[in-house]
């Protein structure tokens, strides 16, 4: 059985190589962010940040308007998520639990909306927002992000609502609840985990959005973090330490959320797959 040893060995070797391929860029971002400048511009790369420093984070955070942009990103993202949840959950309920004319059409419509090519609509949106005299404002950004994440939110929540056993709702109604009360007291609490993961995915999308804010908000006070980061390297010449510190600051919240969410996402995929 000479072959079986090799047969067991090579997948593991490939896995290690792949792991390095996947992780190295992320690792290099953090490593560079913590290395003193002397190590960053050394003739041979310094692979581990042995003399870790917070210098670069300080540089990145002292950029004009940094905290304003953090605030902008948080405001726009959180509001967009909250609004789309509120709007999404009622629609999800209707689509999951009621039978009415045009239901399929609505579902297909939202599926198509989920694939909307926002990247190529920026010109039209720019003209609309300019004519409404709302460039460099957080309001249009919030609203557009809300619509961007709404289809996903709504369709996902529809799945979660459908998974709540109908009998629970019915027995609440037999006990004298109105349909609205049954929804509030029975379905909504059971939806909590679903609401949580759906909103985190929405958060990631809105937090990362780049083309629209690039076009709409050109003034420093109105920018969000992705635009700040993309222009950082140009603004700071070749200060890669500070640039990587900025990238780390931007990426860390998302990395944490994503790792936290991953288990749920894969589980969901498998559930969906069973029926396929």
């Amino acid at each position, binding site marked *: 059985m000479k072959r079986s040893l090799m047969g067991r060995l090579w997948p593991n070797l490939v896995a290690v190589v792949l792991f390095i391929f996947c992780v190295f860029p992320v690792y290099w*971002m953090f490593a560079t962010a913590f290395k003193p400048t002397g190590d960053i511009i050394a003739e041979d790369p310094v692979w581990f940040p042995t003399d870790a420093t917070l210098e670069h984070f300080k540089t990145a955070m002292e950029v004009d308007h940094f905290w304003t942009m953090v605030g902008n990103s948080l405001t726009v993202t959180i509001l967009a998520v909250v609004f789309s949840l509120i709007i999404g959950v009622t629609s999800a309920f209707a689509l999951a639990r009621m039978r009415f004319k045009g239901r399929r059409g609505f579902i297909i419509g939202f599926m198509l909306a989920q694939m909307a090519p926002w990247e190529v609509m920026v010109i039209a949106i720019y003209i609309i927002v300019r004519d409404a005299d709302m460039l460099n404002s957080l309001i249009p950004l919030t609203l557009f992000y809300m619509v961007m994440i709404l289809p996903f939110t709504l369709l996902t929540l529809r799945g979660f609502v459908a998974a709540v056993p109908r009998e629970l709702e019915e027995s609440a109604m*037999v006990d004298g609840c109105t349909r609205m009360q049954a929804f509030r007291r029975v379905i909504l609490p059971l939806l909590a985990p679903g609401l949580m993961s759906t909103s985190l995915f929405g958060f990631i999308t809105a937090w990362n959005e*780049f083309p629209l804010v690039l076009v709409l908000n050109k003034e420093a006070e109105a920018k969000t973090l992705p635009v700040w980061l993309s222009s950082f390297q140009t603004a700071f010449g070749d200060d890669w330490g500070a640039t990587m510190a900025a990238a780390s600051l931007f990426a860390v919240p998302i990395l944490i959320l994503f790792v936290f969410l991953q288990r749920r996402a894969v589980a969901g995929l498998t559930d969906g797959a069973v029926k396929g």
Partner: protein
Amino acid sequence: MTVQKTERPPSGPTEVQTLDGGPRPKGPRRSPGRLAGLTPYLLLAPAIIVTVLLLGWPLVNNGILSFQNLNMRQFILHLTEWNGIDNYKEVLTSEDFWRVTGRSVAFTALNVVLIMILGTLVGLLLARLGRKMRTFLLVGLVLAWAMPVVAASTVYQWLFAQRFGVVNWVLAKVGFDSMADHDWLATQYSTFFVVLLLIVWMSIPFVAINLYAATTTIPKELYEAASLDGAGAWKQFTQVTLPYLRPFLYATTFLEIIWVFKAFVQVFTINEGGPDRLTEILPVYAYIEGMGNQHFGMGAAIALLTIVILLAITSFYLRIVLKQEEDEL
């Protein structure tokens, strides 16, 4: 999805499927007649209204703008000058547009082929690995998947930096001395190479993890039956695994085509479509013409054509998906 890493919309647990939406048994307090019939529409109204206003209207407006002569002057003075199909004539007869279109299609094709082949292989590898190794590789994949696009693109610029970039250092060490101070963003193909690597790197995890999840649902009996019939490993793969995975492969290919075709952020943040506008793909081309050169009408025409091309490319699959959904709902 998209999530879209939003960007890429992550594939959440969408279809937990039980719905039939059948008629409710009569509850004790069912509100009567006409009002009850309106309820679903009222519940849906907010979502529909905001979607129509903020997604539908920009799409329509994009169409309207594409028939206007709208440059800096008209823009500043708020003038509306119709010019019929002049924008389309100009775009469709310009060599640039066709060159960019060809480039976009080739770029998308190359990316998607690489992503699908490598992603599938990684997915199958995940299925083969032992438990510990699999978790280990999954962690790596998830990290790459989770990395925000703009952050990833910044890191890739640093990896491929002309001076002190780690890629040039490695290449010089293994014997390509001429690469020591290579400027990756100086030529068309090497810029595209960096963008391609970035996109493939961030897209493989989605395909691989999806595919792995799909393999876990293949009933073991199928393999047992196949091996009773005397099928070897390869035959089991082509006759059990592959047919079972086909729907997943189609679906992910379809999503990847859409995502890569619209890869504005990656191309733009790496080198803004440069050098000399040679790495512009359609969405970037529309942006540079429309916003950069302030030919808003022209830009809108290019944007609309981009959407049409994207629809044409995906229409075949879109039809299948829609039909499938229709049957299922």
